[in-house]
């Protein structure tokens, strides 16, 4: 069998290869290309793909590519009705970290609280120290208790500045539920405040 020479051929094989194995191989090979066209094809296929193994190969390639194009499209997965797609969206964003900072900044303003919560999870799970400012902004400004609580929890793990502690203390004044008070106190303890 001849080796596929170009991106279009690989995309075709990923979508319509003769068997799962050929489609997995094509999806993995596409991870060697960084263009927007490839990222779009991978994400599009991820959303309609029926084989979990091909989906996992696509996720693997998206993480390998790991650029801003991936971040832009992976964030769309957070809005999916499919729990698997939402989870891999968080995982991709958490893993590619730095490339996703701009996207994170934009998405914490998203009108859907569930999307905002998943963005916070991605920052926290990725332990992205560069995104601490974004977490702090959520703690200071978000109106949704659960979103803020998640941000406080992660800020307790990866934050550390006086500003972080101050933001958490202010949030403790905004949300009075026992749950929130507990999460806030634990975070402050971790930060030594």
């Amino acid at each position: 069998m001849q080796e596929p020479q170009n991106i279009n051929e690989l995309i075709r094989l990923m979508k319509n290869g003769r068997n799962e194995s050929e489609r997995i191989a094509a999806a993995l090979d596409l991870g060697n290309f960084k263009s927007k066209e490839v990222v779009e094809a991978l994400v599009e296929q991820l959303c309609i793909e029926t084989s979990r193994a091909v989906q996992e190969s696509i996720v693997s390639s998206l993480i390998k590519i790991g650029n801003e194009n991936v971040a832009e499209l992976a964030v769309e997965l957070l809005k999916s009705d499919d729990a698997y797609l939402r989870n891999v969206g968080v995982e991709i964003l958490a893993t590619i970290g730095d490339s996703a900072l701009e996207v994170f900044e934009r998405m914490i303003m998203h009108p859907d609280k569930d999307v905002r919560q998943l963005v916070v999870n991605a920052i926290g799970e990725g332990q992205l120290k560069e995104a601490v400012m974004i977490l702090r902004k959520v703690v200071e400004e978000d109106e949704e208790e659960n979103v803020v609580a998640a941000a406080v929890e992660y800020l307790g793990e990866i934050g550390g500045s006086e500003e972080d502690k101050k933001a958490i203390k202010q949030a403790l004044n905004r949300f009075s539920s026992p749950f929130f008070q507990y999460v806030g106190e634990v975070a402050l303890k971790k930060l030594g405040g």
Partner: protein
Amino acid sequence: MTAEEFIKLRDFIYRKTGIYFEEQKMYYVKNRVESRMEATGYENFRSYFTWLRFDVTGQELQQLLNALTINETYFFREYYQLKCFAEEVLPEILERKRKENSRKIRIWSAGCSTGEEPYTLAIIMKEMLEDVDDIDWEIYATDINTEVLQKAERGLYSQRAVRLVPEEYKKRYLYKKGDFYEVIPDLKEKIIFFQLNLMDAVEMRKMRNFDVIFCRNVLIYFDDASRRQVAIYFYEALVEGGYIFLGHSESMSRITPIFKLRKFKNAFVYQK
């Protein structure tokens, strides 16, 4: 080696192999790097690292990897998994082979280190298939570390390494050589040892049609993204319904959902 230098080296090794050393492994890495610097006559890390990166032969990288990936093991390690393989998984495979009119069982010991695992598997295969004439089998044993592979091929082990081998098996498959035990030639010839980087896409695609993969306590050296990639390669390497054994503290479900978890009496095993 400073913390910054450690990170540079760590990232370089990760890009080349997928093996990821956490910060807490810094002193482990530092000790081994210093041994390599001493052996090669480099007095400072900077010049050693420059040489390492631009050495076109790749020999020093291999030597360093050899020093970093030595994994002490022994025969019949995690016995309950081997019992599961011998008494529960293998009969299923035999039944399937007969239905498919197929004669060959292929097993892969991935990350075989100094060979204790593949030889243990060979002993089990010999014992379990003693009265089975219509089935042939072979074991592929791979590791990234060329030094351990040399030891594995030699098949010479200390008393400590063979301490869990039942006496009857010791008599049949090992012979005493001074303070050591050597594996009998009949067992050695059933195993094909060779070097393989589990992150090498080209080489991994050559690994196909395995009925069982043993990859115990190997993926712990990889980061999440590399683990998923290797798991996909394993999926591709297995026949439909093939099995994969991981170390007792490892979970494939945490890496990828593509394998089914099978609960046997003696152990949990993942299946394609």
